[in-house]
């Protein structure tokens, strides 16, 4: 059914109520209408985001701001944040894109004002060598420790060859064993 229809009816009934014309709907009908309205998909929809003038720029802006941090709510991206601050920066990015700035120019603009912290992907430079290389350093160190540990362990569990005397002793024991069984 047309989801707009019950809404229209409800609106009418509401207006009539305001005007004091209460006869239009019974309580049962009203509840039924309420159910229809709540079930209609249009009532679930959130407030629509403002439509950008240029969908291409909007798409580009969202893709870029996905990788940028909102400094007010630091665990959200600029694309996902509803903070006022994120809104301002999205507007700034949009405007710069309309002015034909490249993504790199826009990112540089933001980094110049807010620092590398605005980037979710920090650049590789001396201050971040440990950040980028640390996991690999740990992996190498772990592999090294494992290697030496296994090497030492093999030595520990390796059976040393029998000495001459141990050989003779063993042989004697074996012979004795045979003699008893036969």
């Amino acid at each position, binding site marked *: 059914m047309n989801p707009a229809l019950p809404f229209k009816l409800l609106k009418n009934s509401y207006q009539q109520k305001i005007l004091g014309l209460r006869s239009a709907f019974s309580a049962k009908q009203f509840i039924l209408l309420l159910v229809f309205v709540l079930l209609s998909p249009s009532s679930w929809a959130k407030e629509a985001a403002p439509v950008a003038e240029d969908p291409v720029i909007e798409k580009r802006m969202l893709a870029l701001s996905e990788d940028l941090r909102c*400094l007010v709510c630091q665990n959200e991206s600029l694309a996902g944040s509803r903070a*006022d*601050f994120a809104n*301002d920066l999205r507007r*700034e990015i949009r405007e710069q894109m309309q002015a034909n700035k490249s993504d790199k120019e826009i990112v540089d603009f933001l*980094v110049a*004002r807010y620092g590398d*912290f605005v980037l979710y992907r920090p650049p590789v430079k001396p201050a971040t060598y440990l950040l980028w290389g640390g996991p690999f350093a740990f992996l190498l160190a772990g592999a090294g420790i494992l290697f030496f540990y296994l090497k030492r362990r093999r030595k520990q569990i390796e059976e040393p060859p029998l000495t001459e005397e141990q050989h003779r002793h063993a042989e004697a024991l074996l012979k004795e064993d045979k003699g008893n069984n036969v």
Partner: protein
Amino acid sequence: MTRFLLPLAAFIVLVLFLAVGLGLKPREVPSPLIGKPAPVFQSQLLHEPGKTLASQDNLGKVWLLNVWASWCVSCREEHPLLVELAKSGIVPIYGLNYKDKPDLALQWLSQYGDPYIVSVVDPEGRIGIDYGVYGVPETYVIDKNGVIRHKQIGPVTVESLEKKILPLIKELQG
């Protein structure tokens, strides 16, 4: 013995890292603008919309730029300190009225006192973006050459004034 010492040492190192991490303030992002020329602006005065102030007008003196708004709760916290600082005459304070409504801002100043030489308005937060503002209040110390020397994120406190801002101003004025 080393069997226990090694893990213990590793544990202590880990605890030290965590202890340092707890002391950090992730909300205070170091500004890349420190040591750089303060972004140039020219904007209307809050009290006299017909007049404007340009940041270059302040060249030759050490000044504070305080970003504030009537909707900002922590601004109220630092405000008495700013009023007092303004009275002392140590340093001129200029206000940047950030994303505010002029009538509310004026009312706020008449209610809590006006420590500013003048306040310029930034209704859309564009000057704010140039200065890397993300959490109001913020306060910038700008030297005679128009270079940003310090940025206080969040309200100015007695401690930050005494330990950092006032000594720095003294040094810059020197």
